[in-house]
């Protein structure tokens, strides 16, 4: 039984690793943005109260990268496999349904681990970011765990979008959400109205949590952000479950 879960995850990993679009969008893009905005600014601070940009953006582009990895793996992955009939063949087989979702989750973790390792390497080698090992690890762990609500959000997209509309749908949610949460540019530089609306977004809470690990100035207590992320996870998972059961009734029922 555990062999199915392992093989399913391994196969999913190989599948994505060989898809050029996935690797470019989820690994290359965040690294490229970090080079442009993080490394180019280097040790400068955008504002005397903020840490150097290379350090600050390590947290926010880390969140950006983890979001991309999970939203594409779940959102586009499920939508394409559901829309084009592949998922039906699996549903008719003896595959335990949980194995399918486990594989997507495990692979999201694996790709998050890869992109974060590369991002941290860039920050340490070219951005002059220095901190104790325990802090590096805390940031790594926070960002990895922070991908969970976006798995559920991706699942909503995957359950509702068609195979061709899934990718634009992910972009339409992913990009604006990242900007409005201060992942590209620190929140302090956004219009007041966007700053006030940011707490409605899960990505805002993940970024605040990651910044707190770096001892950068944040809004609200860490525990509140953890609670918010847990709340978003439950909310999204509930909606995904509802969307999925409605969809299967329509298609399979």
């Amino acid at each position: 039984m555990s062999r199915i879960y392992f093989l399913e995850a391994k196969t999913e990993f190989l599948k994505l690793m060989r898809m050029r679009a996935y690797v470019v969008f989820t690994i290359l893009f965040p690294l490229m943005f970090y080079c442009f905005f993080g490394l180019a600014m280097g040790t400068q601070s955008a504002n005397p109260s903020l840490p150097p940009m290379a350090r600050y953006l390590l947290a926010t582009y880390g969140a950006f990268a983890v979001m991309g990895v999970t939203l594409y793996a779940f959102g586009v992955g499920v939508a394409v496999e559901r829309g084009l009939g592949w998922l039906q063949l699996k549903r008719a087989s003896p595959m335990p349904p949980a194995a399918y979702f486990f594989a997507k989750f495990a692979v999201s973790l694996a790709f998050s681990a890869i992109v974060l390792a590369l991002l941290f390497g860039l920050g340490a080698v070219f951005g002059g970011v220095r901190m104790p090992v325990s802090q590096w690890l805390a940031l790594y762990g926070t960002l990895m765990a922070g991908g969970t609500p976006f798995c559920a959000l991706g699942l909503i997209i995957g359950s509702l979008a068609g195979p061709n509309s899934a990718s634009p749908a992910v972009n339409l949610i992913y990009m604006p959400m990242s900007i409005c949460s201060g992942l590209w540019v620190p929140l302090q530089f956004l219009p007041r109205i966007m700053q006030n609306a940011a707490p409605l977004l899960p990505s805002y809470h993940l970024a605040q949590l990651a910044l707190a690990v770096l001892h950068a100035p944040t809004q609200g207590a860490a525990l509140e952000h953890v609670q918010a992320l847990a709340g978003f996870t439950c909310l999204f998972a509930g909606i995904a479950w509802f969307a999925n059961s409605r969809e299967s009734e329509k298609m399979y029922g």
Partner: protein
Amino acid sequence: MPVAELQYVTKNYGPVRALQGISLAIEPGEIVALLGPNGAGKTTAVRILLGLAEPTTGRAAVFGHHPASQFARVRRGAVLQVAKVPETLRVREHIELFSAYYPSPLPLAQTIQAAGLKGIENRLFGELSGGQKQRVLFALAICGNPQLLFLDEPTVGLDVEARRGLWRGIRAFAARGGSVLLTTHYLEEADALASRIAVIAQGRIVAQGSPAEIKQRGSAAGLEDAFLAIMNESEPSLEEVL
């Protein structure tokens, strides 16, 4: 006991009456062809027997169990009308994963041999021709060493050679004692493979029998004329229903 059975099954999708009371039994070792035009209800019947859809009324069973039960799942395989499967996986990787779902799968080499995939097992799915892709889907259907196969229009869009290749695979499966339910709108395919043909139109079975018996119904030279004759006969009754 039949290996798969539909008893007085109806299936409505909203106002659409896809199946209007179908009874069909597949006996061990039989190849049954469900023959009918597009939209006749062939795929719906298969979906119900695969546990992907529940009948509105009536009963469906596979090996005496519910079609969605694990008991049924591990004893059957299927080729569905799949538009696309992950293209960045190798043939071997697809088969290895699917084999792992079953308690006693065929050895990998045997599946590859039986599906005619020797020599291309390390190619990516996306690099294969249409016929080769269909053979991979056939490999996924047989890799679990099932006793029963559901093949939903398995040769649509294939050239003659690829079609004949798949037919050989289906015959070999049946020769080992396996049962097959095949849907098709190619009369020639039903004639070449099936021991029994059930003609389906507008959600009803309008004729059933051996290929020879079906041909006699039309008093005509070929199966095609017989098929058209049956379709014409069944039309008045359908108008009454509507």
